[in-house]
């Protein structure tokens, strides 16, 4: 691939007690690409993501041979309700972010923010009658967070299990939304999840993590159809299938 947007080489993370949390992780992603990092709890997938954006918890020691990030990153998190300031109406949060990050005037920011409401199928009366995060549903809050992240015009969107806390029907809407937005805006995406099915719907490439290591990485079709590692096979087999409906 041509120019990589983001390159991480030999990332290692250690806890304060010295345990090796993330081992020799190398990643790269180009413009408009999507990479899914799949793993179970304690695999180090979320820590890897936090290391990329520089949000590591205190006490974690980091060594990295090369960390090249060209362009802007934005991140969305697992729990939509705790990621929004509860004392701050959502539309105002959105307008503030647009105004600050895009350096436009207040009325202009207002207009851009209204555009985002529409794009994310959020209730458009939020612009007139703003509401607090607690007054919105989980799915709506997650959309607001996606809008906040995308309003910074990122080149790479980092997603940490953004659909895990949502109901399946809402999860489907958010997945479809992310797909559409990515097609339209062309950002690259790193999507961390424990759910192989969700990752397979969103990503072209998959990396499987276990105990802090990437044990397998490749094109989605290769990883899923011909898993090289026994653990990947176990993960694929663990997905409980349901039949298609017309």
């Amino acid at each position: 691939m041509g120019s990589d947007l983001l390159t991480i080489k030999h990332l290692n993370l250690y806890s304060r007690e010295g345990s090796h949390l993330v081992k020799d992780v190398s990643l790269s992603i180009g413009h408009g690409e999507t990479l899914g990092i799949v793993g179970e709890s304690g695999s180090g997938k979320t820590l890897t993501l936090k290391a990329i954006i520089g949000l590591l918890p205190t006490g974690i020691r980091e060594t990295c041979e090369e960390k090249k990030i060209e362009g802007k990153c934005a991140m969305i998190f697992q729990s939509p309700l705790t990621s929004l300031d509860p004392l701050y109406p959502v539309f105002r949060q959105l307008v503030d972010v647009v105004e600050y990050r895009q350096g436009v005037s207040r009325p202009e920011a207002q207009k851009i923010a209204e555009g985002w409401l529409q794009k994310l199928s959020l209730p458009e009366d939020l612009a007139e009658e703003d509401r607090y995060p607690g007054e919105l549903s989980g799915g709506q809050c997650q959309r607001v967070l996606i809008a906040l992240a995308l309003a910074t015009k990122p080149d790479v969107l980092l997603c940490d299990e953004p659909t895990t806390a949502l109901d399946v029907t809402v999860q489907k809407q958010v997945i479809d939304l992310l797909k559409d937005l990515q097609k339209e805006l062309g950002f690259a995406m790193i999507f961390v999840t424990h759910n192989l099915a969700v990752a397979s719907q969103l990503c072209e490439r998959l990396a499987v993590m276990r105990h802090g290591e990437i044990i397998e990485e490749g094109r989605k079709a290769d990883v899923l159809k011909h898993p090289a590692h026994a653990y990947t096979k176990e993960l694929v087999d663990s997905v409980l299938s349901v039949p298609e409906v017309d």
Partner: protein
Amino acid sequence: MDHMLELRDICAYYGDKQVLFDVDLVIGKHRTLGLVGESGSGRSTLARVVTGLLKKSTGTVVFDGEVQGAKRSAEFYRRVQMVFQNPDASLNPKHRIGTILTDGMVIQGVSRADAMVRCRELITRMDLPEDTLERYPRSFSGGQKQRIALARALCTDPDFVILDEPTSALDVSVQRRMLDLIKEIREERGLTILFISHDLGVIRDICDDIAVLRHGVLQETGESAAFFASPKTDYGRELLKAVPRIEYE
């Protein structure tokens, strides 16, 4: 068919808010019924009504042919047990596993020594480490804690077990093992199970029958196979469609 549990016109309230609306449901003996719904559908509330934990409800609960009053009998609590969703919250952090498991039996009149013997059998059956009974809950993984919770539910040798999202907090590979264990135990003991879940994949794997709940209203019930072949309601169809499937290409 003989019914283990029959619910008639169940309404339930949290404060002034009604969360269940005239729910009618039957579970046949030795059947596993999957209760599906999204958040706020009232599925956990229904379990609390069945077990008598939620007092503010109306309607009739019939267990094995007997209408249950507001206060359940000791015999009811021996025959009906439950496993909860959150492995970290379902075991008292201040008690050793041995105490947690035997207390229920002791109150049923089993001697502490006999209870310990039965616990050891269960621990072995659940593939838990040998020193489990002497340890405190915090030293176990989520999957182990759920198996301990299942062991506690089985201690009193119940006929009917309610499993409230017993695998949702677990990793997928651990979930698979837990489901297999539940299936084996169900065969061994001839259990009737009410299995609550939001995950249709899990429901399909383990349940004979299915009931779909939405905003406190029962949408449809029927055999699981029939539902997965063709849901009767639009909402059932929507739920089924929304399940993420692996896309290979």
